[in-house]
């Protein structure tokens, strides 16, 4: 088996999920200048709601495809509502407060959501209720499963849809204008509050998708799964250049690749001293390097602005 190719495949799958979450971070940061540290928790809630729905419907007589679609839909809607409420209740009152206030609120919100999830779903891992018999396909000495293909396809489609929305539509133009200057956008007739809500709702929908994907991929969900995932996706967003949506996608994929290649080779590189369970250090190693050498990220602001 070709380990290198296999790690590339694994990395792309992981990276697509990071990219979806990173898009949410970057979009909100771009428009509000806020790092929504509770975004990872939205991913977790999405996974949990989907699992709960699957469990509740598993014994019903509905066809399996309908059950899955219904669960995804409900999870996405719940997350969108959560994103909307989060902004409206927790961040909007702090719109003009010093930057530290919404940041601390975000961290607090993250803890609150985790604890609510812990009360609702317990401390144990929640198992994915459906047996997924993913067919493996062999390509050039490596293998890729149906589920992995599906994750990459859905993530790509979602990211492309978001980028098209932001760059090709009237709403997207208003979002980019708002990202640059709230007051001037308001002068153009843009309702800035609506635009900010849209950013949260869209980001949360992507987060829900990512949550479901990761739960299906690992077959597990946990109330604390959003914390590390969120932090890594944030790293991906910073790596790509936070505020830049294309950068979030690039950063996500790159981070997934770095992690999985790193995990694949760390044992060989350190002579067996460090094993693949040290996978998580790569993300934060990358974060540190980016912050030192290229704080604006790979695709960060490079626009010349004349006075």
């Amino acid at each position: 088996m070709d380990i290198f190719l296999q790690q590339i495949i694994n990395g792309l799958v992981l990276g697509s999920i990071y990219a979806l979450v990173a898009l949410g971070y970057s979009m909100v940061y771009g428009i509000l200048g806020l790092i929504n540290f509770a975004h990872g928790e939205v991913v977790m809630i999405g996974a949990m709601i989907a699992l709960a729905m699957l469990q509740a419907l598993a014994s019903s007589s509905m066809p399996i495809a309908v059950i899955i679609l219904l669960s995804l839909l409900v999870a996405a809607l719940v997350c969108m509502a959560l994103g909307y409420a989060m902004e409206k209740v927790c961040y909007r009152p702090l719109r003009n407060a010093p930057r530290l206030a919404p940041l601390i609120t975000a961290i607090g919100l993250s803890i609150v959501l985790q604890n609510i999830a812990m009360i609702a779903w317990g401390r144990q891992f929640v198992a994915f209720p459906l047996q997924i018999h993913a067919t493996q396909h062999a390509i050039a000495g490596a293998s890729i499963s149906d589920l992995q293909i599906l994750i990459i396809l859905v993530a790509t489609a979602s990211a492309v849809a978001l980028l098209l929305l932001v760059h090709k539509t009237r709403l997207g133009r208003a979002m980019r204008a708002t990202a640059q200057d709230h007051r001037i956008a308001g002068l153009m007739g843009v309702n800035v509050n609506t635009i900010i809500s849209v950013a949260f709702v869209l980001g949360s929908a992507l987060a829900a998708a990512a949550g479901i994907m990761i739960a299906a991929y690992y077959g597990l969900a946990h109330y604390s799964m959003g914390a590390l995932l969120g932090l890594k996706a944030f790293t991906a967003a910073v790596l790509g250049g936070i505020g830049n949506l294309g950068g979030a996608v690039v950063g996500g994929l790159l981070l997934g690749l770095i992690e999985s290649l790193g995990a694949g080779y760390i044992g060989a590189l350190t002579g067996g001293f460090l094993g693949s369970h040290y996978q998580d250090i790569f993300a934060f190693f990358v974060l540190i390097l980016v912050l030192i050498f290229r704080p604006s990220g790979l695709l960060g602001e490079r626009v010349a602005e004349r006075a």
Partner: protein
Amino acid sequence: MSLLQAQQLKVSYGGINAVKSVDFHISKGELVALIGANGAGKTSTLKALCGMIKAKGNIFYGGADITNQPSCKLVNLGIVLVPEGRGIFSRLSIEENLHMGAYSRHKRREIRADFIKMYDLFPRLAKRRKQLAGTLSGGEQQMLAIARALMSRPRLLLLDEPSMGLAPLMVNKIFTTIKAVSAEGVTILLVEQNAKLALEISHRGYVMESGTIMLSDSAQNLLNSTQVKQAYLGE
């Protein structure tokens, strides 16, 4: 009948009264200059008119009270500000900036016709319409800011210091444009430090000083008034 009427308009920033109870009006189709030195309260007055800051007193527009309405609603009524420092979206293309100007409008054919009109009015913008607006020179940015405001088909255009930081040739070009826009029937309130230039193209003028309106007269009379000459025209 006046299109806009401000009554006892006051603006304060945490205890500092920037505008202390001013009254003025603008009739439909007029070009009115609001002149005065730095810190006289001109920009604060404009910001109050377009809903960017909270104000006390009353602002009537076409008979309706619009005091403290958010700016995104006032655009739909036809009140548009070209802000001081131009406020273009530097990371959007020139074309996208113009689209933002037309954000409150929905009739595509009319918008397309206005695009052609703007590019006729400002051929320099047409040539560079796919470029990011941040790459334009100061004068070109001012043109873009005015063109963007016109894209909303304003009924009342508020201009804040359009000559600021521009080369004399460019200032002339901008003022010729303002006059042309006014001739088309758009009501304009022009805030300027360059009093002579502003009064020369205006119908009437108000002179502001320390948050109050000191003088109000026809532009011609203000240009000839010894008070204005001494204080603002440097004669």
